[in-house]
Protein backbone atom coordinates (compact mmCIF):
# COMPACT_ATOMS: atom_id res chain seq x y z
CA UNK A 1 0.00 0.00 0.00
CA UNK A 2 1.24 3.47 -0.84
CA UNK A 3 2.05 5.47 2.23
CA UNK A 4 1.24 9.15 2.51
CA UNK A 5 3.79 9.75 5.23
CA UNK A 6 6.57 7.43 6.22
CA UNK A 7 9.86 7.42 8.06
CA UNK A 8 12.68 4.93 7.70
CA UNK A 9 15.36 4.41 10.33
CA UNK A 10 14.54 7.76 11.88
CA UNK A 11 16.80 8.79 14.75
CA UNK A 12 16.71 12.06 16.64
CA UNK A 13 19.36 12.93 19.18
CA UNK A 14 19.35 15.91 21.55
CA UNK A 15 22.83 16.28 23.00
CA UNK A 16 23.30 12.93 24.67
CA UNK A 17 19.63 11.91 24.69
CA UNK A 18 18.51 9.59 21.93
CA UNK A 19 14.89 10.72 21.81
CA UNK A 20 13.93 8.55 18.82
CA UNK A 21 16.00 5.52 17.98
CA UNK A 22 15.88 3.99 14.51
CA UNK A 23 12.13 4.09 14.01
CA UNK A 24 10.36 3.11 10.79
CA UNK A 25 6.63 3.63 10.47
CA UNK A 26 4.23 4.71 7.76
CA UNK A 27 0.63 5.71 7.36
CA UNK A 28 -1.58 5.12 4.33
CA UNK A 29 -4.58 7.00 3.06
CA UNK A 30 -7.61 6.80 5.33
CA UNK A 31 -5.79 4.99 8.10
CA UNK A 32 -5.89 5.93 11.77
CA UNK A 33 -2.91 4.88 13.82
CA UNK A 34 -2.29 5.42 17.51
CA UNK A 35 1.12 5.84 19.12
CA UNK A 36 1.37 5.28 22.84
CA UNK A 37 4.02 4.73 25.45
CA UNK A 38 5.39 6.14 28.69
CA UNK A 39 6.40 9.75 29.18
CA UNK A 40 9.71 10.47 27.51
CA UNK A 41 9.41 7.55 25.10
CA UNK A 42 9.81 9.87 22.11
CA UNK A 43 6.23 10.22 20.83
CA UNK A 44 6.32 13.99 20.50
CA UNK A 45 9.76 13.98 18.94
CA UNK A 46 8.71 11.38 16.39
CA UNK A 47 5.59 13.35 15.49
CA UNK A 48 7.51 16.63 15.23
CA UNK A 49 9.97 14.97 12.85
CA UNK A 50 7.16 13.50 10.76
CA UNK A 51 5.45 16.90 10.74
CA UNK A 52 8.71 18.35 9.35
CA UNK A 53 8.89 20.66 12.34
CA UNK A 54 12.21 19.21 13.32
CA UNK A 55 15.00 17.70 11.26
CA UNK A 56 15.95 14.11 12.06
CA UNK A 57 19.53 13.42 13.10
CA UNK A 58 19.52 10.54 10.64
CA UNK A 59 17.09 8.48 8.61
CA UNK A 60 14.63 9.56 5.94
CA UNK A 61 11.10 10.86 5.75
CA UNK A 62 8.93 10.18 2.72
CA UNK A 63 5.90 12.20 1.76
CA UNK A 64 3.88 10.49 -0.97
CA UNK A 65 6.92 8.38 -1.75
CA UNK A 66 9.28 11.35 -2.08
CA UNK A 67 12.33 11.50 0.17
CA UNK A 68 11.72 14.93 1.67
CA UNK A 69 15.25 15.86 2.72
CA UNK A 70 17.21 14.01 0.03
CA UNK A 71 15.24 15.69 -2.75
CA UNK A 72 15.32 19.07 -0.99
CA UNK A 73 11.59 19.65 -0.99
CA UNK A 74 10.16 23.04 0.00
CA UNK A 75 9.34 22.26 3.63
CA UNK A 76 6.83 25.10 3.98
CA UNK A 77 4.77 23.72 1.11
CA UNK A 78 4.80 20.21 2.57
CA UNK A 79 3.97 21.38 6.09
CA UNK A 80 0.81 22.95 4.71
CA UNK A 81 -0.24 19.45 3.57
CA UNK A 82 0.47 17.85 6.95
CA UNK A 83 -1.84 18.98 9.76
CA UNK A 84 -0.46 19.19 13.29
CA UNK A 85 -2.44 19.38 16.52
CA UNK A 86 -0.41 20.26 19.62
CA UNK A 87 -0.89 19.12 23.19
CA UNK A 88 -1.30 22.66 24.43
CA UNK A 89 -3.41 23.88 21.54
CA UNK A 90 -0.97 26.72 20.74
CA UNK A 91 -3.68 28.90 19.23
CA UNK A 92 -2.51 32.31 18.04
CA UNK A 93 -3.50 34.39 21.04
CA UNK A 94 -3.99 37.68 19.25
CA UNK A 95 -6.55 36.19 16.84
CA UNK A 96 -10.11 34.99 17.29
CA UNK A 97 -11.06 31.37 16.69
CA UNK A 98 -12.01 32.29 13.14
CA UNK A 99 -8.86 34.39 12.68
CA UNK A 100 -6.71 31.46 13.77
CA UNK A 101 -8.10 29.32 10.98
CA UNK A 102 -8.18 32.06 8.34
CA UNK A 103 -4.49 32.93 8.74
CA UNK A 104 -3.18 29.87 6.92
CA UNK A 105 -5.96 29.91 4.36
CA UNK A 106 -5.07 33.48 3.41
CA UNK A 107 -1.30 33.57 3.75
CA UNK A 108 -0.36 30.00 2.88
CA UNK A 109 -3.02 28.89 0.39
CA UNK A 110 -3.74 32.42 -0.83
CA UNK A 111 -7.54 32.43 -0.54
CA UNK A 112 -9.34 35.77 -0.56
CA UNK A 113 -10.76 37.17 2.67
CA UNK A 114 -14.29 35.98 1.87
CA UNK A 115 -13.23 32.53 0.64
CA UNK A 116 -11.05 32.09 3.72
CA UNK A 117 -13.91 33.18 5.94
CA UNK A 118 -16.28 30.65 4.41
CA UNK A 119 -13.77 27.82 4.65
CA UNK A 120 -12.80 28.69 8.21
CA UNK A 121 -16.41 28.86 9.28
CA UNK A 122 -17.00 25.47 7.68
CA UNK A 123 -14.10 24.02 9.69
CA UNK A 124 -15.51 25.51 12.89
CA UNK A 125 -18.84 23.85 12.15
CA UNK A 126 -17.11 20.48 11.80
CA UNK A 127 -15.77 20.80 15.34
CA UNK A 128 -19.02 22.38 16.58
CA UNK A 129 -17.40 25.68 17.48
CA UNK A 130 -19.21 27.97 15.05
CA UNK A 131 -20.93 29.82 17.92
CA UNK A 132 -17.51 30.80 19.26
CA UNK A 133 -16.08 32.09 15.99
CA UNK A 134 -15.35 35.58 17.30
CA UNK A 135 -13.93 34.62 20.69
CA UNK A 136 -10.26 34.90 21.55
CA UNK A 137 -8.40 31.79 22.79
CA UNK A 138 -8.16 33.23 26.31
CA UNK A 139 -11.97 33.32 26.42
CA UNK A 140 -12.34 29.61 25.57
CA UNK A 141 -12.03 26.49 27.71
CA UNK A 142 -9.16 24.08 27.11
CA UNK A 143 -11.42 21.68 25.24
CA UNK A 144 -12.83 24.44 23.07
CA UNK A 145 -9.35 25.70 22.29
CA UNK A 146 -8.31 22.22 21.27
CA UNK A 147 -11.29 21.88 18.95
CA UNK A 148 -10.29 25.16 17.30
CA UNK A 149 -6.74 23.79 17.05
CA UNK A 150 -8.12 20.78 15.20
CA UNK A 151 -10.21 23.03 12.95
CA UNK A 152 -7.11 25.09 12.17
CA UNK A 153 -5.30 21.95 11.05
CA UNK A 154 -8.08 20.38 8.97
CA UNK A 155 -9.17 23.63 7.28
CA UNK A 156 -6.01 23.40 5.17
CA UNK A 157 -7.28 20.09 3.71
CA UNK A 158 -4.12 18.25 4.79
CA UNK A 159 -3.42 14.77 3.50
CA UNK A 160 -2.59 13.55 6.98
CA UNK A 161 -3.13 15.00 10.45
CA UNK A 162 -0.72 14.38 13.32
CA UNK A 163 -2.05 14.72 16.87
CA UNK A 164 0.33 15.03 19.82
CA UNK A 165 -1.62 13.99 22.94
CA UNK A 166 -4.44 16.43 22.19
CA UNK A 167 -6.35 15.58 25.36
CA UNK A 168 -3.50 15.08 27.83
CA UNK A 169 -3.74 18.59 29.28
CA UNK A 170 -7.53 18.53 29.63
CA UNK A 171 -9.83 17.77 32.56
CA UNK A 172 -11.76 14.54 32.22
CA UNK A 173 -15.05 16.28 31.39
CA UNK A 174 -13.42 18.26 28.60
CA UNK A 175 -11.63 15.29 27.05
CA UNK A 176 -14.74 13.77 25.59
CA UNK A 177 -15.75 16.70 23.43
CA UNK A 178 -12.32 16.59 21.81
CA UNK A 179 -12.31 12.83 21.42
CA UNK A 180 -15.77 12.98 19.87
CA UNK A 181 -14.47 15.40 17.25
CA UNK A 182 -11.50 13.15 16.52
CA UNK A 183 -13.71 10.07 16.17
CA UNK A 184 -15.87 12.01 13.78
CA UNK A 185 -12.81 12.87 11.69
CA UNK A 186 -11.65 9.27 11.66
CA UNK A 187 -15.12 8.14 10.54
CA UNK A 188 -14.94 10.62 7.65
CA UNK A 189 -11.80 8.86 6.44
CA UNK A 190 -9.24 11.43 7.61
CA UNK A 191 -5.73 10.02 7.66
CA UNK A 192 -4.59 10.37 11.27
CA UNK A 193 -1.57 9.54 13.37
CA UNK A 194 -2.44 10.13 17.01
CA UNK A 195 -0.26 10.02 20.10
CA UNK A 196 -2.70 9.37 22.91
CA UNK A 197 -3.40 7.29 25.97
CA UNK A 198 -7.14 7.35 25.38
CA UNK A 199 -7.56 3.63 24.90
CA UNK A 200 -11.27 3.84 24.23
CA UNK A 201 -10.55 6.09 21.29
CA UNK A 202 -7.87 3.67 20.11
CA UNK A 203 -10.15 0.67 20.47
CA UNK A 204 -12.94 2.27 18.46
CA UNK A 205 -11.03 3.85 15.61
CA UNK A 206 -7.40 2.72 15.41
CA UNK A 207 -6.39 0.43 12.56
CA UNK A 208 -3.10 -0.10 14.30
CA UNK A 209 -1.46 0.74 17.60
CA UNK A 210 2.24 1.44 17.98
CA UNK A 211 3.83 1.02 21.40
CA UNK A 212 7.00 3.02 22.03
CA UNK A 213 9.46 3.01 24.87
CA UNK A 214 12.84 4.73 25.22
CA UNK A 215 12.76 6.02 21.68
CA UNK A 216 12.09 2.65 20.08
CA UNK A 217 9.10 0.84 18.73
CA UNK A 218 8.55 -2.11 21.02
CA UNK A 219 5.44 -3.61 19.52
CA UNK A 220 2.90 -2.97 16.76
CA UNK A 221 -0.55 -4.54 16.53
CA UNK A 222 -4.28 -4.09 16.36
CA UNK A 223 -6.18 -2.68 19.38
CA UNK A 224 -7.61 -6.18 19.76
CA UNK A 225 -4.07 -7.55 20.04
CA UNK A 226 -2.97 -5.05 22.68
CA UNK A 227 -6.15 -5.41 24.74
CA UNK A 228 -6.00 -9.19 24.82
CA UNK A 229 -2.46 -10.47 24.50
CA UNK A 230 0.47 -8.14 23.94
CA UNK A 231 3.69 -10.03 23.24
CA UNK A 232 6.15 -8.00 25.22
CA UNK A 233 6.35 -7.66 28.96
CA UNK A 234 6.71 -3.88 28.68
CA UNK A 235 3.53 -3.48 26.63
CA UNK A 236 1.64 -5.75 29.03
CA UNK A 237 2.74 -3.70 32.02
CA UNK A 238 1.95 -0.42 30.35
CA UNK A 239 -1.52 -1.54 29.23
CA UNK A 240 -2.25 -2.68 32.76
CA UNK A 241 -1.10 0.64 34.09
CA UNK A 242 -3.27 2.81 31.87
CA UNK A 243 -6.27 0.55 32.07
CA UNK A 244 -5.85 1.08 35.82
Amino acid at each position, binding site marked *: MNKILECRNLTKIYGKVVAVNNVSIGIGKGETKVIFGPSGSGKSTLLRCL*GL*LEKPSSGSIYFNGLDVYATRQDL*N*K*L*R*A*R*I*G*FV*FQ*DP*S*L*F*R*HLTALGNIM*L*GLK*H*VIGLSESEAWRKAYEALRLVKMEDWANY*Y*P*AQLSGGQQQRVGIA*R*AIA*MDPEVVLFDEPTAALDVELKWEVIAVMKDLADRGTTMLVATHELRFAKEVADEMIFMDQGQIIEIGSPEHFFTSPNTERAKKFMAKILG
Partner: protein
Amino acid sequence: MTPIEQIIFLLKAVPVTLAISLLSFLFGLGLGILLAFMRIFESAPLRYLSDSYEKFFRSVPVLAVMLLLYFGVGPFIPIFKDPFFTSVFSLGIVSGANQSQIFRSAIGSVGRTQMLAAISIGLTRFKALRYVILPQALFLAVPGLGSEIALLIKDSAYSFIIGVIELMKHTDILRASQRSLILPYVSSAIIYVVMTFPVATFLDKWGSRKKKELGL
Protein backbone atom coordinates in the same frame (compact mmCIF):
# COMPACT_ATOMS: atom_id res chain seq x y z
CA MET B 1 5.65 89.90 28.76
CA THR B 2 2.97 88.96 31.27
CA PRO B 3 3.21 85.47 32.77
CA ILE B 4 0.31 84.39 30.55
CA GLU B 5 2.07 85.69 27.47
CA GLN B 6 5.22 83.86 28.49
CA ILE B 7 3.37 80.60 28.88
CA ILE B 8 1.68 81.05 25.53
CA PHE B 9 5.08 81.73 24.02
CA LEU B 10 6.34 78.45 25.47
CA LEU B 11 3.30 76.51 24.26
CA LYS B 12 3.92 77.73 20.71
CA ALA B 13 7.09 75.62 20.68
CA VAL B 14 5.29 72.44 21.72
CA PRO B 15 4.40 71.28 18.17
CA VAL B 16 8.08 71.27 17.17
CA THR B 17 9.08 69.33 20.28
CA LEU B 18 6.30 66.83 19.62
CA ALA B 19 7.25 66.56 15.95
CA ILE B 20 10.87 65.75 16.81
CA SER B 21 9.80 63.18 19.40
CA LEU B 22 7.20 61.51 17.23
CA LEU B 23 9.32 61.35 14.08
CA SER B 24 12.35 60.02 15.93
CA PHE B 25 10.10 57.50 17.67
CA LEU B 26 8.76 56.22 14.35
CA PHE B 27 12.25 56.07 12.87
CA GLY B 28 13.45 54.18 15.95
CA LEU B 29 10.44 51.86 15.73
CA GLY B 30 11.25 50.77 12.19
CA LEU B 31 14.90 50.40 13.06
CA GLY B 32 14.14 48.55 16.30
CA ILE B 33 11.89 46.00 14.59
CA LEU B 34 14.45 45.47 11.85
CA LEU B 35 17.28 44.99 14.36
CA ALA B 36 15.19 42.62 16.47
CA PHE B 37 14.35 40.55 13.37
CA MET B 38 18.01 40.43 12.38
CA ARG B 39 18.72 38.82 15.72
CA ILE B 40 16.25 36.02 15.05
CA PHE B 41 17.37 34.95 11.61
CA GLU B 42 19.96 32.28 11.29
CA SER B 43 22.61 34.39 9.60
CA ALA B 44 25.48 35.01 12.01
CA PRO B 45 26.74 38.25 10.39
CA LEU B 46 23.27 39.81 10.66
CA ARG B 47 23.01 38.82 14.30
CA TYR B 48 26.47 40.18 15.01
CA LEU B 49 25.69 43.45 13.25
CA SER B 50 22.46 43.93 15.17
CA ASP B 51 24.12 43.03 18.45
CA SER B 52 27.00 45.47 17.97
CA TYR B 53 24.65 48.23 16.89
CA GLU B 54 22.52 47.76 19.98
CA LYS B 55 25.48 47.63 22.36
CA PHE B 56 27.11 50.69 20.83
CA PHE B 57 24.13 53.02 20.65
CA ARG B 58 22.81 52.05 24.05
CA SER B 59 26.10 53.27 25.52
CA VAL B 60 26.58 56.55 23.64
CA PRO B 61 24.92 59.81 24.79
CA VAL B 62 22.40 61.17 22.29
CA LEU B 63 23.98 64.57 22.62
CA ALA B 64 27.35 63.24 21.50
CA VAL B 65 25.75 61.70 18.39
CA MET B 66 23.89 64.91 17.64
CA LEU B 67 26.94 67.14 17.99
CA LEU B 68 29.13 64.78 15.99
CA LEU B 69 26.66 64.63 13.12
CA TYR B 70 25.91 68.35 13.11
CA PHE B 71 29.41 69.72 13.50
CA GLY B 72 31.48 66.79 12.32
CA VAL B 73 29.48 65.36 9.42
CA GLY B 74 27.40 68.41 8.47
CA PRO B 75 30.20 70.16 6.58
CA PHE B 76 30.60 67.12 4.31
CA ILE B 77 27.03 65.86 3.98
CA PRO B 78 24.70 68.83 3.59
CA ILE B 79 21.60 67.17 5.02
CA PHE B 80 23.24 67.13 8.45
CA LYS B 81 23.53 70.90 8.32
CA ASP B 82 19.79 70.91 8.92
CA PRO B 83 19.33 70.98 12.73
CA PHE B 84 15.79 69.56 12.68
CA PHE B 85 16.76 66.61 10.50
CA THR B 86 19.94 65.96 12.48
CA SER B 87 18.14 65.93 15.80
CA VAL B 88 15.41 63.57 14.55
CA PHE B 89 18.04 61.34 12.99
CA SER B 90 20.25 61.22 16.09
CA LEU B 91 17.38 60.57 18.49
CA GLY B 92 16.06 57.94 16.06
CA ILE B 93 19.23 55.91 15.69
CA VAL B 94 19.77 55.84 19.44
CA SER B 95 16.13 55.02 20.08
CA GLY B 96 16.41 52.20 17.51
CA ALA B 97 18.88 50.47 19.82
CA ASN B 98 16.54 50.84 22.81
CA GLN B 99 13.52 49.70 20.85
CA SER B 100 15.42 46.74 19.46
CA GLN B 101 15.97 45.60 23.01
CA ILE B 102 12.31 46.15 23.90
CA PHE B 103 11.21 44.06 20.91
CA ARG B 104 13.77 41.37 21.51
CA SER B 105 12.49 40.72 25.00
CA ALA B 106 8.85 40.99 23.80
CA ILE B 107 9.49 38.46 21.02
CA GLY B 108 11.20 36.24 23.55
CA SER B 109 8.11 36.19 25.74
CA VAL B 110 5.78 35.31 22.86
CA GLY B 111 7.28 31.85 23.11
CA ARG B 112 8.65 29.11 20.93
CA THR B 113 5.42 27.12 20.63
CA GLN B 114 3.70 29.99 18.79
CA MET B 115 6.43 29.86 16.17
CA LEU B 116 6.10 26.09 15.92
CA ALA B 117 2.32 26.36 15.48
CA ALA B 118 2.77 29.02 12.80
CA ILE B 119 5.32 26.92 10.92
CA SER B 120 3.09 23.85 11.21
CA ILE B 121 0.39 25.36 8.99
CA GLY B 122 2.97 26.09 6.31
CA LEU B 123 3.82 29.73 6.96
CA THR B 124 7.36 30.69 6.02
CA ARG B 125 9.54 31.88 8.87
CA PHE B 126 9.17 35.45 7.70
CA LYS B 127 5.38 35.26 7.46
CA ALA B 128 5.24 33.59 10.86
CA LEU B 129 7.18 36.51 12.32
CA ARG B 130 5.04 39.01 10.46
CA TYR B 131 1.57 37.59 11.20
CA VAL B 132 1.99 35.65 14.44
CA ILE B 133 5.02 36.73 16.45
CA LEU B 134 5.22 40.46 15.71
CA PRO B 135 1.56 41.33 16.46
CA GLN B 136 1.80 39.64 19.85
CA ALA B 137 5.20 41.16 20.52
CA LEU B 138 3.75 44.61 19.75
CA PHE B 139 1.17 44.21 22.49
CA LEU B 140 3.86 43.07 24.89
CA ALA B 141 6.14 45.93 23.87
CA VAL B 142 3.57 48.70 24.35
CA PRO B 143 4.46 49.61 27.97
CA GLY B 144 8.17 49.73 27.10
CA LEU B 145 7.43 51.81 24.02
CA GLY B 146 5.47 54.23 26.22
CA SER B 147 8.56 54.84 28.35
CA GLU B 148 10.60 55.22 25.18
CA ILE B 149 8.28 57.97 23.88
CA ALA B 150 8.56 59.78 27.21
CA LEU B 151 12.33 59.49 27.01
CA LEU B 152 12.36 60.92 23.49
CA ILE B 153 10.17 63.87 24.46
CA LYS B 154 12.64 64.68 27.22
CA ASP B 155 15.74 64.05 25.10
CA SER B 156 14.37 66.21 22.29
CA ALA B 157 15.46 69.11 24.53
CA TYR B 158 19.06 68.47 23.39
CA SER B 159 18.12 69.69 19.91
CA PHE B 160 18.19 73.20 21.33
CA ILE B 161 21.97 73.01 21.41
CA ILE B 162 22.29 72.59 17.65
CA GLY B 163 19.72 75.32 17.04
CA VAL B 164 16.30 73.74 16.64
CA ILE B 165 13.59 76.19 17.70
CA GLU B 166 11.73 73.95 20.12
CA LEU B 167 10.47 74.18 23.69
CA MET B 168 13.90 74.40 25.35
CA LYS B 169 14.94 77.13 22.91
CA HIS B 170 11.82 79.16 23.70
CA THR B 171 12.55 78.68 27.40
CA ASP B 172 16.04 80.00 26.83
CA ILE B 173 14.73 83.01 24.88
CA LEU B 174 12.57 83.89 27.87
CA ARG B 175 15.49 83.44 30.25
CA ALA B 176 17.52 85.93 28.23
CA SER B 177 14.77 88.50 27.75
CA GLN B 178 12.74 88.41 30.96
CA ARG B 179 13.66 89.24 34.53
CA SER B 180 12.38 86.03 36.11
CA LEU B 181 14.22 82.75 35.72
CA ILE B 182 11.76 80.77 37.76
CA LEU B 183 8.68 81.22 35.59
CA PRO B 184 10.15 80.04 32.26
CA TYR B 185 11.95 77.01 33.68
CA VAL B 186 9.16 75.87 35.97
CA SER B 187 6.50 76.31 33.28
CA SER B 188 8.64 74.53 30.76
CA ALA B 189 9.24 71.66 33.18
CA ILE B 190 5.50 71.38 33.80
CA ILE B 191 4.82 71.31 30.07
CA TYR B 192 7.32 68.43 29.66
CA VAL B 193 5.63 66.52 32.48
CA VAL B 194 2.20 67.07 30.93
CA MET B 195 3.46 65.73 27.59
CA THR B 196 5.27 62.67 28.90
CA PHE B 197 3.37 61.43 31.92
CA PRO B 198 -0.10 60.76 30.40
CA VAL B 199 1.34 59.01 27.32
CA ALA B 200 3.57 56.73 29.35
CA THR B 201 0.86 55.96 31.90
CA PHE B 202 -1.84 55.38 29.31
CA LEU B 203 0.30 53.03 27.21
CA ASP B 204 1.43 51.16 30.30
CA LYS B 205 -2.19 50.61 31.44
CA TRP B 206 -3.43 49.74 27.97
CA GLY B 207 -0.60 47.30 27.36
CA SER B 208 -1.10 45.54 30.67
CA ARG B 209 -4.84 45.25 30.06
CA LYS B 210 -4.38 43.78 26.58
CA LYS B 211 -1.79 41.39 27.90
CA LYS B 212 -4.25 40.10 30.44
CA GLU B 213 -7.20 39.94 28.04
CA LEU B 214 -5.31 37.92 25.46
CA GLY B 215 -3.47 35.77 27.99
CA LEU B 216 -0.10 36.75 26.56
